[in-house]
């Protein structure tokens, strides 16, 4: 396999927190490679460090030790501005609790990442295009009728689909999903997983964190995290 096939490589990741006098070691030397177009599920019990790992992979957090390379570029060498651009353009986050802005409409929430990446003039130059893209994404998620609604007017499944639309707005190379069905009933959760599968089939690289093995089975590969270490890797047969 060519090294160019890997979109993301994590090498010897350690992460520890200080809680008073005690040092809590969350990650203890994690190595992980993600190929382009892969759908990887990171599974682990609560407290195993899976969300921490996801945040480090998406540059929301920094490892205490170790390296994360995105398309062969070491994230630790990125300056603050480059990291912001990385989060804006290269990765899309989907959170368990959706994390939408209540002050904005559904449509505005979706095109927000494009708007935040532009100056006022830049935004006015591309806003029509951005709005059309956001409408397309919402149409794919079956939310065309909801574009003017506020997030608090939607159901949990609808909110999570809006969050997926927002994550995909800037066509990121990598989609990171943190327990995307964790706050949904199983039918709605399955709908969200269907959306992720469809996206993956279209070539989207996805890393999903879950504690549920049945959900992890929907991914192409499962990585088990136990006590801060990768215990075993498994290729699911989809």
């Amino acid at each position, binding site marked *: 396999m060519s090294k160019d096939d890997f979109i993301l490589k994590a090498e010897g990741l350690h992460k520890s927190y200080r809680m008073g006098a005690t040092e809590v070691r969350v990650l203890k030397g994690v190595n992980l490679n993600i190929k382009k177009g892969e759908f990887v599920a990171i599974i682990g019990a609560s407290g195993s460090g899976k*969300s921490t790992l996801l945040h480090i992979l998406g540059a929301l957090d920094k490892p205490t030790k170790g390296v994360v390379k995105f398309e062969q570029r070491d994230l630790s060498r990125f300056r603050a501005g480059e990291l912001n651009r990385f*989060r804006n353009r290269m990765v899309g986050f989907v959170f368990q609790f959706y994390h939408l802005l209540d*002050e904005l409409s559904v449509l505005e929430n979706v095109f927000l990442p494009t708007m935040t990446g532009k100056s*006022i003039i830049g935004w*006015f130059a591309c806003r029509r295009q951005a709005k059309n893209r956001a409408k397309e994404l919402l149409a794919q998620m079956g939310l065309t009728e909801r574009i003017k609604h506020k997030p608090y007017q939607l159901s949990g499944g609808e909110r999570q689909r809006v969050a997926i639309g927002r994550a995909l707005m800037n066509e990121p190379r990598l989609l990171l999903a*943190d327990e995307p069905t964790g706050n949904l009933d199983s039918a709605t959760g399955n709908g969200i997983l269907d959306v992720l599968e469809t996206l993956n089939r279209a070539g989207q690289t996805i890393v999903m964190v879950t504690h549920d093995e049945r959900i992890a089975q929907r991914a192409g590969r499962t990585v088990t995290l136990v006590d801060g270490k990768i215990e075993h890797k498994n290729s699911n047969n989809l």
Partner: protein
Amino acid sequence: MYKIILATRYLLKRRTTYFAVLAVALSVFVVVVVMTVMAGLVNEFKEKNHRFAGDCVVGTESLVGFAYYEDFVKLMEQQDFVEAVSPAIKSFALKRRRGSDQDGVVEIMGIDPVRHSQATGFGDTLYYHKDDVSKTFEIAYDANLVGCVLGDFLLLQDTNSRNLSEISLPRIAYSISCFPLTARGALAQAGTDMVNTKTFYYSDQSSTGLPRIDGSLVYLPFEQAQLLCGMAGSNKRASRLHIRFKPGVKIQAGREKVRSLWQKFKQDKAGEIQAYTLDTVTVQSWKQYRRSSIAPMENEQTEMSVMFGFVGITTVFIVLVVFYMIISHKSKDIGILKSIGVSNIDIIELFSGYAFLVGILGSGFGLLAGWVFLLKINPIEDWLFEHFGFQLWDRTIYAIGDIPNQVEFKILAIIVVSAIAACLVGALIPSLQAARQKPVETLQVGQL
């Protein structure tokens, strides 16, 4: 763009923000009203003092006066920057109204009404002779009598009247008594004749709008006052010269020119017999001449400004507390924004923009309320006076017709800029705190 949208939405949606807007509006309202009225009072007061004194005053506080003033008047009248010069006699006297057995101490000022009206605003202060000041001291019912002009407050006190419209042109006579002094300051006469007394008849009244002046000053014809004070004779003396500069001449520049001319004049007169009387003469701008009256008002204005500076500081703290509360409720939004690539500076700008909007809106409401209140302040005060006998400003102290309510653009601009700056300062610490928040913490992802 998203910063403008989000800041506007936060402003409209967060009820806590309304308290910040209200705090700013109230502060701006109070400051606009008080500063406008205070600035109006001070400016009006200064303008009245300016009209009373002219642009520049050459004179002495000594009751002896100074000699050779006529030569200096001639010299001044030759200067191209001088519009008019009016010599004046100033002294103290005892005044007794005919038919009364009570004496009162007054200040007397001997002037030539025409010259004095050219050099100062004297003519405009007269009640009957505004249009023909040359007849100021003429008595309509007897051309042989000599007139005097009383300050209107003095006249009110004398006639026990509450307002001037109640007084019909009265045939009041006053005997004015002065102690004439020699050039050396000694009493000019001895024994029973040590006092000069002359009778003057009320010919007009003057209203400068300066209570201390209008309550104590009697204007007399120049020559008569000179005689009374012992300043007539071979070497005539005067107390001061009031000078008006030509239009466009700056007060300071004009005063400097007069000062240098005076220095030269004084040197030229050094060998003269009464040259020593020139030693106490000073050349002052109207502001310096009237500083004992103006300075307390200016101090009062400064004290007010300092007090309202504290109001501004209070506003800063109110905004700080409100923003601290708002930002603590918005930590999730901060995390979301950071997860999609928003920088720390953008977060600071977002909340500063929010504070800016609070400042703009608060100032807008405050200005509007202040402007409406100022428009109605006089009717409101009239109503309070009619119904409760309450007056915001005692007219005997402030000598104003109406409460000044002319809003000055400069003052408004300073207040608005200060209010917005106060909001920005108040929001600075919470904004910095927001920018420092880590996205993983603000998104409350407690899971490890």
